[in-house]
């Protein structure tokens, strides 16, 4: 979309500002914030993939956690120590393992495409839910590959001997801050998020992106315009799976150890919460939604004990933990009640109302029925 040049310049400057701040953050953030931020980054990458799938091609998926798991476990297996007695690996260099894991998820997405191509809307959503349960079953039972219930360790990421997950080589210090594993991983995370965002924005504005949007709005129109609909739907699934997997790899790196319990229904639903709160179909919305959904519970948990009038853990009053869950639930409800097209829609409306104030009265807001929705799919 082209905008007036001034708006574009403001946007560019804002992006530069955000990037600069993000680059400087490890200088000041404590470990908790770095760790939480990295979790958010992992979620952001996967959520971008899901919003491409749901918001762009109109395929509802509740199976995203499955592909995240393939990324996480794929990386751990490919990079893992071949001689480990519990869960062995192939011992590939981490970079290759990362690429391999992402490709493996793409392959899994392709294998699922015969089903995803046949089903629509809520049917596809709940069929993919089945994928999560099947996937978790495999994670629990394929012990030699996955380590079973106890999971397996993630090999630290390194490039040419420079480790991103621990402190080797030692003694890297910037402005008096020692750059250990988390600080270094932060930059790897930023890089991956940046590349993911950039690719997603490019895709949305390209030939495949337009084809997907047309499929979302009318499969018939897309077909008539020469789009091979089944193939593009499958491709959207594959791309989204690869994004999920990339997020999964980062997640494994941040965790250091992955367990199958993480990759369940809750994770899948959380991803849906992220893109819905952010505004379905909006890459920026997915980023904000993912950050919000990941950070909100962590921060609330961490700091809600600062609030007064809370009961001690173990007694029966409302404890800090309960309160943080309640705030989380309320946040979901309130955001969607007052902005059913998510934060992206809210932002758009605020933006356009600013513009309108500047330009005098203009057209009112666009209604729900025109936003890219999955409503039609439900039928």
């Amino acid at each position, binding site marked *: 979309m082209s905008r007036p040049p001034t708006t574009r310049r403001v946007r560019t400057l804002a992006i530069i500002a*955000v990037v600069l701040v993000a680059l400087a953050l490890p200088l000041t953030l404590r470990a908790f914030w770095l760790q939480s931020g990295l979790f958010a980054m992992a979620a952001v990458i996967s959520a971008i993939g899901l919003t491409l799938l749901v918001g762009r091609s109109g395929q509802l998926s509740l199976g995203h956690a499955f592909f995240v798991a393939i990324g996480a476990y794929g990386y751990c297996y490919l990079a893992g120590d071949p001689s480990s007695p519990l869960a062995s690996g192939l011992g590939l260099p981490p970079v290759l393992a990362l690429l391999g894991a992402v490709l493996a998820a793409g392959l899994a997405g392709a294998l699922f495409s015969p089903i995803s191509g046949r089903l629509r809307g809520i049917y596809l959503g709940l069929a993919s839910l089945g994928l999560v349960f099947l996937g978790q079953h495999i994670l629990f039972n394929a012990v030699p590959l996955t380590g079973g219930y106890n*999971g397996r360790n993630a090999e630290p990421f390194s490039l040419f001997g420079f480790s991103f997950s621990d402190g080797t080589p030692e003694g890297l210090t910037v402005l008096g801050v020692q750059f250990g594993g988390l600080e270094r991983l932060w930059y790897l995370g930023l890089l991956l998020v940046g590349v993911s965002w950039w690719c997603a924005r490019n895709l949305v504005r390209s030939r495949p992106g337009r084809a997907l949007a047309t499929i979302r709005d009318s499969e018939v129109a897309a077909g008539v315009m020469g789009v091979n609909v089944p193939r593009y739907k499958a491709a959207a699934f594959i791309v989204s799976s690869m994004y999920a997997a990339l997020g999964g790899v980062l997640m494994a790196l941040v965790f250091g150890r992955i367990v199958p319990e993480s990759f369940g229904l809750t994770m899948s639903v959380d991803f849906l919460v992220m893109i819905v709160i952010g505004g379905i179909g909006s890459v920026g919305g997915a980023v904000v939604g993912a950050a919000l959904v990941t950070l909100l519970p962590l921060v609330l948990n961490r700091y809600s004990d600062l609030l007064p009038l809370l009961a001690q*853990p173990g007694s029966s009053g409302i404890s800090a*933990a309960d309160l943080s869950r309640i705030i989380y639930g309320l946040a979901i409800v309130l955001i969607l009640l007052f902005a059913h097209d998510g934060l992206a829609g809210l932002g758009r409306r605020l933006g356009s109302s600013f513009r309108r104030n500047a330009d005098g009265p203009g057209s009112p807001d666009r209604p729900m029925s025109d936003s890219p929705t999955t409503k039609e799919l439900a039928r």
Partner: protein
Amino acid sequence: MKRPLVTSVCLMVALAATSCGKAEEQSGGSAGGAAEAVPGVTEDTITLGSLMDLTAVFASNSRSILQGTNLYWDAVNADGGVCDRQVELDVQDHGYDAQTAVSLYQTMSGNVLAIAPVLGSSVITALRPSFQEDNMLVGMAAWTSDVLPDPQFQITGTTYDIETINAIDWLTREHGLTSGDSIGVVYFEGDFGGSSLRGAEYAAEELGLTVVPHQIKPSDTDLSAQVNAMANDGVKAIIVAAASPQTASIASVAASIGLDVPIVGNGPAFTPDLLDTPAGAALEQNFYTATSMAPPSLEEEGVQEFLTAYQAEYPDEEPIQNGAMYGYASSQIIHEVLTRACEEDALTREGLQEALRSITDYESGGTVAGVLDYSDPSVPPTREIYISRADPAAAGGLTAVGDSFVSELAEGYEFTG
């Protein structure tokens, strides 16, 4: 127009300024020379961290553990504390989510001397590398042998596999279980159930029994299919390595289909209010627990002390044997560790580890079976257990059957973890 850039430059400057703060904190934390710099220890307080599940599946268990823990430390603090310091507990809720736990641990680790108690096997698994890195003493609200021989972990009593071996041995002695018989094992996937199943398989192998395993999840509460299957396999006893809802279901279904066999549960398999449920009669008939944690009704000094304190604090509630008793007993041991470290003037994480391993003959006053010996991290501190019978008349719903004991079979068990 240019505001974003200006803002960002300002922010950068601010960040650079605060980075000095972080730098100082980092150097302070890693140097760790003076006693003042030890995380979680100040002039007048010792802070212990606790990672519990207060909102998800193990919420009720976590709450009762914290009841026992609070009970103990409140008494200690009223008594002047440890090492002239008050003991404080920093409790965080991970909601049984490993990711949350990992994040919470990041903040907690810099502010606490040790982590006790921590609940949730997937949480412990996910945090294990961090525990090792931080040299953190971890009081574990679980009895799995999977953590052996990591020296960080403090286990209160023996492990599930030993409990199960002792229980099966006891069944052969008291309930006529003989070679060729089958025993059913209903277990949670994961280290709790896995540990118990390993013990059962070892004992079965040694005694010529057949194990019929049934793996379940904590959300399974209707076990009629499994019990029917076990009845068809003609099991002579059932081991429950699961939680109390599963115990209740197994006992009541077994009774309803006429499967009249002893049911022995590991520690977490029982809570006293099960006896008020429709399963009560069946439990009274056939249910036993096998664990190092004493039944609250036990006529021993330490246990009675606990019971009195508990009843004074929570007059309307029954002490949950596995929860409150564990919280109390494990705090006793952490207390001992802190006292010893204090005596050595080594109230540091390393000092705590050494203090734990210096304990060779701790007697808990009956709350934990046997004499605890923590010197060898590759084995649990004891192999003794109590067998207790479900008894609505007794405090905590359990009455000990005989004294604590260890079987020869259990003595001979070797830990593979």
